[in-house]
């Protein structure tokens, strides 16, 4: 049995049936990381000792017939998610060496489910970026072409899963940071409805948009991981107290009669022709499987990018005010307290500073109504677009990104062209929808293309089953 080739759900079955054990699977992942990650650089921290201890403990439980959902399965965690006793930096020099005193809700859930945590994956600093080039440490490379980006901000998680260096991974998605790297790396990435998964212990970027998401090599893997970490938690006041669902059981592969909307606005000018061809072919496949395809309109789509780049930096400028070198992180001592804070905050990277500046301006006296206030109103129109669409259809199908993975350095000096990498994913974050990216082919350079499926509020089961039906066909 080649352990690194198994999917998460295959490994789970093999572990339960005693065909292998967690220590062997964990060691296989750690060996694979040693072999591959010098080139790909998906991990910021590898928690090998802790992982092998967790694996040994899982093997004891497995031997006793314990059926916990992820018992013994090695998983990677994005470095913006707090892990007790394991360095957590959010990809930032301002949190270099920070060791959280508690686990994030999703890490508690992973541990409850019996998962083994392999390490912490690279991210654009504070999840601000679309390529991992904004990481304060290094850039992760796309496993399909090492000269290209893996997407971002959860690029480390996507690359680790794509290169068989984890059976699944957690990420976060504020404007597309799970779906876009999933698309670039040829894996499945789910961004659940805002509030579906508690954000307790997730380092905040833009609090009205942030949500934890899951990566897997298959739809079933992504679903199994989502099932394990989802749930209500009163420590996050935006967590939704909704009844538990069996998402894995919802993967029937039957989508007969499903209404799939195709928004004209998502086939934008300047998108790769090969992306459009692949996505249209995937939509035709859904029709063959019994879905009804309906042309729809999301008329305010063009305003989503400017709205996002006012709201997200505004929220970020407030959230990141806490990094002052007093309670955690390095401190650079200046002439007085204010000077020390200013010098310490110079440790932020260029993109983070840019967004703090933008957000501070958009919220400042005299400009609040003109920028932030106006953006919040247009957000209402964007939300209404989705509400209107979901009166007609069950699922919206579109490309995840207008292009396949771009070259490292290609967009690094031009913030606006980098922001365009998220133009098809960020509307969803402004609304109350959920979405995922599932691989739907390759371009002529051999780079993966992603099909984005968007569902109504809390309709994760519908989009996961649609992706499952497509994947199985």
């Amino acid at each position, binding site marked *: 049995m080649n352990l690194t080739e198994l999917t998460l759900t295959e490994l789970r079955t093999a572990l339960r049936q005693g065909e292998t054990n967690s220590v062997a699977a964990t060691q296989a992942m750690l060996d694979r990381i040693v072999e591959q990650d010098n080139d790909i650089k998906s991990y910021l921290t590898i928690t090998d000792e802790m992982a092998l201890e967790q694996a040994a403990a899982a093997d004891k439980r497995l031997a006793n017939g314990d059926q916990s959902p992820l018992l013994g399965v090695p998983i990677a965690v994005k470095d913006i998610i707090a892990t007790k006793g394991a360095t957590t930096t959010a990809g930032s020099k301002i949190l270099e060496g920070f060791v959280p005193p508690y686990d994030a809700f999703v890490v508690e859930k992973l541990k409850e489910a019996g998962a083994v945590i392999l390490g912490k994956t690279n991210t654009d600093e504070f999840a601000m970026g679309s390529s991992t080039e904004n990481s304060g440490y290094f850039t992760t490379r796309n496993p399909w072409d090492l000269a290209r980006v893996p997407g971002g901000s959860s690029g480390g998680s996507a690359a680790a899963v794509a290169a068989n260096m984890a059976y699944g991974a957690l990420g976060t998605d504020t404007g597309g940071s799970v779906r876009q790297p999933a698309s670039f790396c040829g894996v499945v990435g789910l961004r659940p409805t805002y509030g579906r998964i508690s954000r307790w212990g997730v380092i905040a970027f833009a609090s009205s*948009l942030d949500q934890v998401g899951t990566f897997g090599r298959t739809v079933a893997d992504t679903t199994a991981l989502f099932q394990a970490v989802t749930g209500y938690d009163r420590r996050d006041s935006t967590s939704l107290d909704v009844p538990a669902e069996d998402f894995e059981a919802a993967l029937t592969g039957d989508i007969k009669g499903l209404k799939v909307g195709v928004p004209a606005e998502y086939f934008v000018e300047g998108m790769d022709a090969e992306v459009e061809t692949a996505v249209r072919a995937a939509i035709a496949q859904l029709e063959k499987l019994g879905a009804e395809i309906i042309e729809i309109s999301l008329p305010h789509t063009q305003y989503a990018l400017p709205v996002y780049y006012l709201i997200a930096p505004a929220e970020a400028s407030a959230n990141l005010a806490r990094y002052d070198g007093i309670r955690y992180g390095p401190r650079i001592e200046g002439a007085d307290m204010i000077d020390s804070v200013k010098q310490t905050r110079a440790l932020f990277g260029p993109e983070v500073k840019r967004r703090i*500046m933008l957000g501070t301006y958009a919220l400042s006296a005299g*400009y609040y109504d003109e920028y932030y206030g106006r953006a919040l109103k247009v957000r209402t129109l964007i939300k209404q677009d989705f509400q209107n669409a979901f009166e007609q259809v069950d699922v919206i199908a579109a490309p995840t990104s207008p292009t396949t993975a771009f070259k490292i350095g290609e967009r690094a000096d031009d913030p606006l062209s980098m922001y365009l990498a998220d133009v098809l994913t960020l509307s969803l974050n402004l609304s109350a929808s959920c979405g995922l990216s599932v691989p739907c082919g390759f371009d002529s350079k051999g780079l993966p293309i992603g099909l984005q499926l968007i569902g109504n509020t809390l309709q994760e089961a519908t989009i996961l089953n649609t992706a499952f039906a497509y994947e199985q066909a």
Partner: protein
Amino acid sequence: MSELTLKDVERIAHLARLQLTDEEKAAYLGQLTAVLDYAAVLNELDLEGVPPSPHAVAQQNIMRDDVIEPSLPIEDTLHNAPQQADNQFLIQSVLDE
């Protein structure tokens, strides 16, 4: 929309408590102007009577019962502090003597 100046950049940097080099100030002036110009497209819309949406899923006033619960131990809380003394975070003086 109003035109951004280097003075504005310096004012914002001070509000945000960011120490910027002259090069950074010049770069941000150009880049922030480009993003704000791009955002001017929002002025096309008639927003009369449109309510703002600060959240994706609106929830209000989530309260918990007023019950004392255990907090993190002091040593865990202080573990990451760059400087500490007497079970407290140590900072530079902020008041004149």
